[in-house]
C-alpha cells in the first residue's frame, strides 16, 4: 500500500531523514518507534506533504505522492492524526468533525458527511454526547478521540497516528487503542503508528521499524523487535 524508498527530508540545510525506506501492506498495523528528535514526526509530515525539501520516493497504492500538495494527499486516502491533537479549540466538536470532511464536502450534498458523523458517534459515543461542546473544553482523552475522529471523517484507507498516547492516562490510552484495533478489524483500515511508548506500540503492531537520528536502524515483526537486545535496552527498560 505504502512504499517509501530512500527518503530524505530537510529542515533548511539540516538533513532530518537519511535514506529512509519502509513499506506498509494493506490491512497491517505497523509501528515506528524512536526517541525524541529521531525523525518520527518528520517522517509522517513528509508522507502527508508538509515538508519543503525532500528527495526519494513515496508510492501510495502505486502512485508517487512525494511533491503532491497535502490537500490532494488527503483526497487520495491518507489521513494524519497530528502530534498534540491540533484541534480547533474554540470550535465545537461537530465543527471540528466537519472540517475533516474537507475532501468530499459539498454544500448541496451533505448526506455523506452526516452519515459519517453518525458513524463516528457510534465509534466514540462520548463525542456524540458532547457534540455541541467546545473542543478546548474536552478532557485530554476526549480531545485525542476527536482528533482521531476528525482524521477518520475523510474516510482514509491509511491512517497515520503521531504519538496518540502523549499526555494521557494509561487507562484512556488503552481504550483508544482498543477502539482503533476494533475499527481495523471491521474496516480493514491500515494503520501506521508512531510512538515513543514502545511497549504500547509493540503490543498492538504486527511489524515495526526503529528510527534513530533520522535513519531506520532495525525492522522486523513484533517478536523480532521484542527479541532484539538493543530495543529491549533502549525502549523497553530491559537489561
Amino acid at each position, binding site marked *: 500500500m505504502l*512504499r517509501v*524508498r*530512500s527518503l530524505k527530508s530537510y529542515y533548511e540545510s539540516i538533513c532530518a531523514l*537519511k*535514506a529512509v*525506506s*519502509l*513499506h506498509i501492506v494493506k490491512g497491517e498495523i505497523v509501528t515506528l518507534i524512536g526517541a525524541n528528535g529521531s525523525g518520527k514526526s518528520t517522517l509522517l509530515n513528509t508522507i502527508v506533504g508538509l515538508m519543503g525539501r525532500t528527495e*526519494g520516493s513515496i508510492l501510495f497504492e502505486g502512485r508517487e505522492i512525494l511533491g503532491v500538495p497535502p490537500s490532494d494527499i488527503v483526497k487520495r486516502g491518507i489521513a494524519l492524526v497530528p502530534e498534540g491533537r491540533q484541534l480547533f479549540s474554540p470550535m465545537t466538536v461537530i465543527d471540528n468533525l466537519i472540517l475533516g470532511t474537507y475532501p468530499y464536502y459539498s454544500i448541496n450534498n451533505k448526506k455523506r458527511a452526516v452519515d459519517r458523523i453518525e458513524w463516528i458517534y457510534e465509534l466514540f459515543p462520548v463525542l456524540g454526547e458532547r457534540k455541541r461542546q467546545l473542543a478546548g473544553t474536552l478532557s485530554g482523552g476526549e480531545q485525542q478521540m476527536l482528533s482521531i475522529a476528525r482524521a477518520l471523517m475523510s474516510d482514509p484507507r491509511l491512517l497515520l497516528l503521531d504519538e496518540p498516547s502523549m499526555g494521557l492516562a494509561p487507562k484512556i490510552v488503552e481504550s483508544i487503542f482498543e477502539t482503533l484495533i476494533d475499527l481495523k478489524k471491521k474496516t480493514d483500515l491500515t494503520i501506521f503508528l508512531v510512538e515513543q511508548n514502545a511497549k504500547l506500540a509493540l503490543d498492538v503492531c504486527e511489524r515495526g521499524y526503529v528510527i534513530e537520528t533520522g*535513519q*531506520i*536502524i*532495525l*525492522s*522486523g515483526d513484533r*517478536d*523480532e523487535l521484542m*527479541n*532484539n*537486545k538493543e530495543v529491549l535496552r533502549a525502549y523497553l527498560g530491559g537489561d
Partner: protein
Amino acid sequence: MSIWNEKYETMSRPELGQEQLERLQQTLGRVYRRVSYYHELFNRIGFDPLEVTSLDDLKKIPFTTKDTLRIAYPYDMFAVPLREVVRMQSTSGTTGQPLIVGYTKNDVEHWTELTARVLAAGGVTKDDIIQISFPYGLFTGGLGFHYGAEKIGASVIPCSDTDIDNQITIMRDYRTTSLCCAPTFAALLLEMIDEKSVTPAELSLRRALLGAEPWNESFRNEMEEQLDLDVTDNYGLTEIMGPGVSYECGEKKGLHIAEDHFIPEVIDPKTGELLPHGEKGELVITTITKEAYPLIRYRTGDITSLMTEPCPCGRSLVRMTRVFGRIDDMIILNGQNMFPAQFEQILTEVIGETPNYQLVVSQEDNIDQLEIQIEVSQDIFDDEIKTLNRIERGVAREVKERLDFVPRITLVEPRSIVRRMKQSRVIDLRKPE
C-alpha cells in the same frame, strides 16, 4: 513438498526488492557503526551507507574474503557485544583455520525458519520421523536442521555422526522416513545396501535431503531408484549462517535462495566482475538480516550460476544451480583450469555410477601430472581384467577428449580411499608442505 512461508517464499519481485532495500540499508548502517573492519573500509573508499538508494549501490563495496575473517578471528567481525550472542558455531576448517560465527536470539530464530523451509520444500511434515545424520556440535549441519525439524513438528532423531551400522539399525527400527545428511553418508548407505547389509524393503525411507558437499544428478538418480525416494539438494555455509541459504523444491531444478535474508551475486573469480544471470562463477552473498555476524559481499568460494526464470513451484525466489565445486578445489594443470566435478562426470558416465575417487596432482620434470585413483566395487574388481581395462581406457579417452591431456589411471580396491565429510577430492603434491 509444501511452501513453509507463503509470505516470503512467494512474494512478488517488487515487494521483495523493497524488503531487500530496507534490510540492506539497515545492515550497511549497522556494520558501519559496529564492525571496525567495515567502518574503516567504508571510510577508505568514501562509501556512505546513508547514500544507498538502490540495491545496485552494493556493487560499490569491495568483497569480503575468508582471509579478512581469519584476520578478525575470533570476535572482530561480530556486530553485537558477546552478551547478545546466544550461540557459537564454527566452520569446518576445510581450507584452513576454522572461524567462529555467533548468533543472536533473532539469528537463531531466522536460521530455524530457514531450515524449516528447506525441510518443508523437501517434503518433510509433522508426520515424519527425521534422522539427522550431520555431526552435532560446532558444525552447523546438526543443530541447524534439528531446530528446523522441531519447528515443523517432525519427530527428530539427533543421530549425529555415529557409525553407519548403528545409523542403519536406528533407521530400520525407528522407521525413519526422512534422512538429512551429507552425500558422503548417503553413499555409504548405498554401499551397505549393495553389500546386502540392509535391504530397501526393511527401511521406511521416503526422502533424503543432502547438503554440505557438492554431489551430482547421477547420484540422485541412483539413490532415488535404489531406495524409491525423493532426494533433494540444499546449500549453506557457516560464515553466512549454515544450512538454509538455498534449497531445492519438488521440481529439483535448482536451489531457491532465501533472498529475504541473503542477496546473491555471481562473479568471475579471477576479475571480480559481476557476471550476467546464467553464467557460471563464484557465488557472493550479502546477509541482510543477520545481527551478530553480518557479512557484506562475502566470497563463498562456491561455483554456481543464477537462474531467474520463474519456477513452477510458485516460489518467486531466484534459483542457483547445484554447486559445481569450490574455487579451492580448482586444479590448475599445465596452465589449464579444471574442477573435480568434471572428472566426476566422466567417471560416472564410463562406469555407470559415481565411484569414490581421488585426484593426485604431481610434477615430473616441470610437467604437471594427474593420477585418477578410482575405487571400484568388489564385483568389478573380481571381474575379468577386460572390464578393468575397459574402465581405464574409457576414462583416459574421455579425459583426453574433453580436457585435452592424458591422465594416469589407477583402479583401487573398495574402501581404500578414505571417506570423510568435506574432504577435498584433490591431493596436490606440488604444493610445498
